[in-house]
Each structure stands twice: as structure tokens, then as C-alpha cells.
């Protein structure tokens, strides 16, 4: 069976429950559902922030996420896969990103979700700008995100 990933890049919020239900409701082949929700925190480092603004590269963002979704589907026996990434201004406590994976067994669902999050962090063309009392500034990439992504590379 061919699994098609659902990929959405949108300004609007998403509903985790609805996305989980879309991949599992009424099915008896799905044994494991993993969801990852990334949420905007109220601090970056130790400083309070008012909001994040996410810029993205339309066209490439979809292409890049699709490429990694296809790789996940090739590497793990997934039954379903949904990725939603928001852009625009996002306040603390609001959702930023969602990955839902389903499989017969738990290991595939967990690993594929982690793989996708690691790659979204380092390869998907999104950039976060923070608003704080000091004004706005671009968040810097973190070395340990690169290290997390590198662990999935076949040696």
C-alpha cells in the first residue's frame, strides 16, 4: 500500500486531535500513533519574548518537507503521515508545528516522527524572528540541532 503524506504550510492554527483522528479513526491496521506538537515558548534563552514571526520560502518549504516525508515513508513501514508547519506571527503558547505518524508498531512511528522533526529543524526553509523588550532579532541556529539531524544519515 502506498502511503501519501499530507503536508500543509499555513498561517492558521491546526487541531492536533483532528489530525490524529484523520490518520486513525475507523482503521484497524493502525497500532501506534505518535504526535509531536511544537509550541511557541514564552522565553528564548532566559529572555521573555512577546511573539515569534516565522518567515518561510514558499515552494521550497513544501518541496523540502515532501522530500523528507518521502524518505520517512521509504525508511519506515508507516501507515500515515501528516506534517503541518505554520508561518507568520505566533504568540507564546500557540502551536508552531505538528508531525503525526501512524504505523502497525510503535518503533516505526516514533523513529519517523523524530527523524522528521530533526530535519524540519535544520533543513526546512523557515526562519524565526523573536520580538522582545529589546526589539526584534533573528533566532540563531543551534549546533545540537545539526547533530540531531546528522544521526539519521546512513553511514
Amino acid at each position: 500500500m502506498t502511503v501519501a503524506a499530507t503536508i500543509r504550510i499555513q498561517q492558521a492554527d491546526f487541531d492536533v486531535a483532528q489530525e490524529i483522528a484523520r490518520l486513525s479513526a475507523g482503521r484497524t491496521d493502525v497500532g501506534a500513533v505518535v504526535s509531536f506538537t511544537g509550541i511557541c515558548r514564552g522565553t528564548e534563552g532566559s529572555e521573555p519574548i512577546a511573539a515569534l514571526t516565522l518567515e518561510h520560502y514558499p515552494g521550497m518549504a513544501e518541496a523540502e518537507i515532501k522530500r523528507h516525508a518521502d524518505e520517512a515513508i521509504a525508511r519506515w513501514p508507516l501507515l500515515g503521515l501528516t506534517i503541518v508547519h505554520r508561518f507568520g506571527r505566533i504568540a507564546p503558547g500557540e502551536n508552531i508545528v505538528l508531525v503525526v505518524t501512524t504505523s502497525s508498531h510503535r518503533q516505526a512511528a516514533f523513529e519517523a516522527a523524530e527523524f522528521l522533526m530533526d530535519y524540519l529543524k535544520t533543513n526546512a526553509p523557515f526562519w524565526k524572528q523573536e520580538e522582545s523588550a529589546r526589539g526584534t532579532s533573528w533566532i540563531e541556529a543551534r549546533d545540537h540541532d545539526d547533530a540531531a539531524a546528522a544521526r539519521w544519515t546512513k553511514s
Partner: protein
Amino acid sequence: MKVKYFAWVRERIGKAEETIEPPANVRTVDELIAWLSGRGDGYAYAFEKPKVIRTAIDHAHVKPEAAIAGAREIAFFPPMTGG
């Protein structure tokens, strides 16, 4: 060819995209960055640390030594911070 800039690269250059016609001796991403850097202070500031800059050709990540021949759209941006 069309060039796009994102995040602080865009802010420093002061525009999101433009159409450029680099000379024939500009063959790689590296060389294009060096050529763009000479176009003004904003460009020089955006590309002051070329090793930090990431590049995509036609929506795919490429390395600095990649050839630009045949590219329809080249984008320059800082390391990504999505997810």
C-alpha cells in the same frame, strides 16, 4: 536569473528578490556570492561571512561549489530555524 533573499539576508540587502545577470565568469554559488557582495554595502553586509550563508537552486539545497548554470531561481538565506 531570479535571486531570492530570506530573513536577515533579505533585511540587509533591502529586497526580497531581484533579477540579475552575472557575467559569464561567475560559474558557482561561491563566485556568485563574491560577485553579489560587490554590488553595494547592503550586499557586502549580507554576505560578510559567506560560510554562514545557505543557498538553494530551484528549491533544493546546494553546496557553495555548485554550478549555477541553468538555474531558474537561486535563494540565499541564513541557517534555518524552523520546526
